[in-house]
C-alpha cells in the first residue's frame, strides 16, 4: 500500500462530519473547504485548505469521528494516506510534525481554557484540598512512603495552606509508622484504634472533619498569613464556644500565640499562666512556657525569663525542638550579662 492520488469533482464531498475514517489527506490542487459547527454557538464555521496543507489529521490520529465535512469547491487533486503511511511520510520531515505539534498544542490550550471557564466554581476541583485528600488516602491505606511523599509535596506547594498543620502532623505520623510498622502494616493512622491499641484491627475509614475542626484549621490558616488580629478573634470564638475540648485547648494555645505576635506581652503572660493552671496536662506546655519567657524577656525581666527557660529544660524531652530554643535563649541571656 502506498499513498493514493485521487481526483474529486467540484461539489463532491470527501468526508462528512460524523464519519469514522482513518484517512489523512493533503491538497495538491483545487479548492476544498472544511465546514464545522462552533462548539459553543452552533454556528457554521468554514475554513479553506491551502495547497500543500494536510487535513483530516486530528480525527484520524485520535481515532474519533470527523468533526467537520470536507467539501470540494473546485475540481481537486488530493493524496490520501493511511495513518501508517502518514507516519512514514512525516518521519522524514520532522519540520512538518513540529509545526503540527505547535498548532495542536495551541488548540489544546485554547479549548482547555474554554472548558475551565465553563466549569462553575463548585465543579472546579480544589487542587489544594485534592492533594491533601490523596495524602490522606495513602495514609489510610497504610502506604506510608507514598503518604509522606504527598504531604511533603503539599507542604512545598502550600506552606501556609488550609491543611498545612494537619499535613505536617500527618507527614510525621506517616514517617513514624513507616519506621515502626513498615509499609502496608500496622493500624490505620488517625483512627481511635490506632491511638488506643496499636495491634487492633484497622478501621475502614476515619471520620470527617467536624465543624469545630474546620473552624480551627481555618483560623490556623489565617494565623499563618500573619493576620494575628483576625486569627485571635476566630480562636477566641472557638474557645468560647467550647464545643470540643480538644479544639478548645488547641485554640486557647493559639490565642496565646496571637497575643505574643501582636506584642501584647502582659496579656500573653496572663493568658498562658491561666491556661497552664486550667490544663496542666496540655500538650504544648513547654511551648507555652517559652512564650511566657519571651514575654518577660521583652519586658526586660530577665530573671523571670530565665526561670521559665530553665523550667522548659527540666521538663521537655531530648528531641523536643523547644528544648534547643530554650537552651539558645539561656545562652543569649548569659552572653548579654557579660
Amino acid at each position, binding site marked *: 500500500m502506498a499513498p493514493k492520488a485521487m481526483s474529486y469533482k467540484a461539489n463532491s464531498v470527501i468526508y462528512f462530519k460524523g464519519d469514522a475514517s482513518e484517512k489523512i489527506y493533503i491538497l495538491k490542487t483545487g479548492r476544498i473547504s472544511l465546514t464545522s459547527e462552533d*462548539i459553543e454557538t452552533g454556528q457554521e464555521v468554514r475554513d479553506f485548505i491551502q495547497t500543500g496543507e494536510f487535513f483530516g489529521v*486530528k480525527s484520524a490520529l485520535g*481515532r474519533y469521528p470527523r468533526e467537520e465535512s470536507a467539501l470540494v469547491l473546485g475540481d481537486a487533486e488530493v493524496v490520501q494516506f493511511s495513518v501508517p503511511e502518514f507516519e512514514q511520510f*512525516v518521519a522524514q520531515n520532522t519540520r512538518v510534525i513540529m509545526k503540527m*505539534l505547535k498548532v*495542536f498544542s495551541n488548540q489544546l490550550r485554547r479549548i*482547555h481554557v474554554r472548558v475551565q471557564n*465553563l466549569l462553575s466554581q463548585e465543579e472546579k476541583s480544589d487542587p489544594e484540598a*485534592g492533594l491533601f485528600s490523596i495524602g490522606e488516602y495513602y495514609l489510610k491505606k497504610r502506604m506510608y512512603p507514598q503518604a509522606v511523599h504527598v504531604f511533603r509535596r503539599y507542604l512545598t506547594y502550600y506552606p501556609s495552606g488550609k491543611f498545612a498543620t494537619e499535613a505536617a502532623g500527618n507527614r510525621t505520623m506517616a514517617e513514624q509508622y513507616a519506621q515502626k510498622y513498615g509499609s502496608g502494616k500496622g493500624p490505620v493512622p488517625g483512627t481511635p484504634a490506632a491511638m488506643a491499641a496499636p495491634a487492633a484491627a484497622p478501621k475502614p475509614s476515619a471520620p470527617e472533619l467536624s465543624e469545630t475542626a474546620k473552624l480551627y484549621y481555618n483560623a490556623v490558616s489565617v494565623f499563618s498569613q500573619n493576620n494575628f488580629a483576625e486569627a485571635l478573634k476566630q480562636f477566641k470564638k472557638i474557645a468560647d464556644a467550647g464545643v470540643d475540648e480538644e479544639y478548645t485547648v488547641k485554640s486557647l494555645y493559639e490565642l496565646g500565640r496571637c497575643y505574643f505576635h501582636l506584642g501584647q506581652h502582659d496579656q500573653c503572660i496572663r493568658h498562658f499562666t491561666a491556661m497552664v493552671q486550667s490544663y496542666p496536662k496540655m500538650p504544648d506546655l513547654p511551648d507555652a512556657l517559652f512564650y511566657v519567657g519571651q514575654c518577660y524577656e521583652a519586658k526586660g525581666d530577665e530573671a523571670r525569663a530565665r526561670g521559665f527557660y530553665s523550667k522548659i529544660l527540666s521538663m521537655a524531652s531530648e528531641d523536643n525542638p523547644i528544648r534547643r530554643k530554650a537552651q539558645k535563649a539561656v545562652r543569649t541571656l548569659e552572653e548579654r550579662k557579660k
Partner: protein
Amino acid sequence: MSLSLSAFERFAVIFQKGDIIFCEHEPGDSFYLIQSGRVHISRVMGEIEKTIDILQPGEIFGEMAILEEVPRSANAVALDQVKTLEFNRANFEILMRGNPQIAMKLLKLFSKRIYDQRRRFMILTLDDLQARVADVFLMLAETDPGQNQDSEKREFKTSIDDIAHWAGLPTDKCREVINHFVSQRRIEVLSDRIVMKNINEFVRFVAARRRAASS
C-alpha cells in the same frame, strides 16, 4: 522500540518501584517518556483507587503539562524501577526534533486530548442534566469503535464516578439522573458495566436539547 536517545541522557530520571512520579492535583510542569519499566496511572475516588492505565516503555504521560498551570489529573506511580526522560515546555522541542517517532506519539496524544476537551466542552454546555449525562454516553460510544455498529445496543466498561467526572456533576446528582434512565428502561447498570439499550434514542434526545439550547 529502538530509540537512539543516548543524546538525551541528561533528561533521564530514575524512579524506584512504588515511587510517586506525580500525584493528582499537584501542579505539573514536566512530562515523561518511559524508557524502561511500567507506570501505573490511577485516580483516587473517595476510598478507592481506580486504575486508568498501565503504561509500557515507549509511552508518554503527563503531556497535559504542555499547558500552563494545569493540575495533574491522575497519579503516576512506578510499578517497577522506571527510567524516564523528563521534559517540559521549554525543552520538549529539542527531543521532538531528533525523534520523529516520539513527536508522532505526542501528536496522537494531542489529537486525542483536543477531541476530549472539545467533547467535554459540548457536554458541559448542556444545561439539561439528563441531556448532559446522555451525551457522556454518546461520547463514550464515539471513542469506542470496537462496538457493533449495526446494533442499537452499546456497553460501557465504566462507572457512575467516571460519568459524573465527565458530566461535571457530583456523583450523587449523576446517580440520580442515571437512576431516572434506569427507571425508563433506557439504561441498565451492572456491577462491571453500563448497558445503553438504544443509542439512537440518546442521539435524538441530546440533539433536540442541544438545538433547544442554542435557539
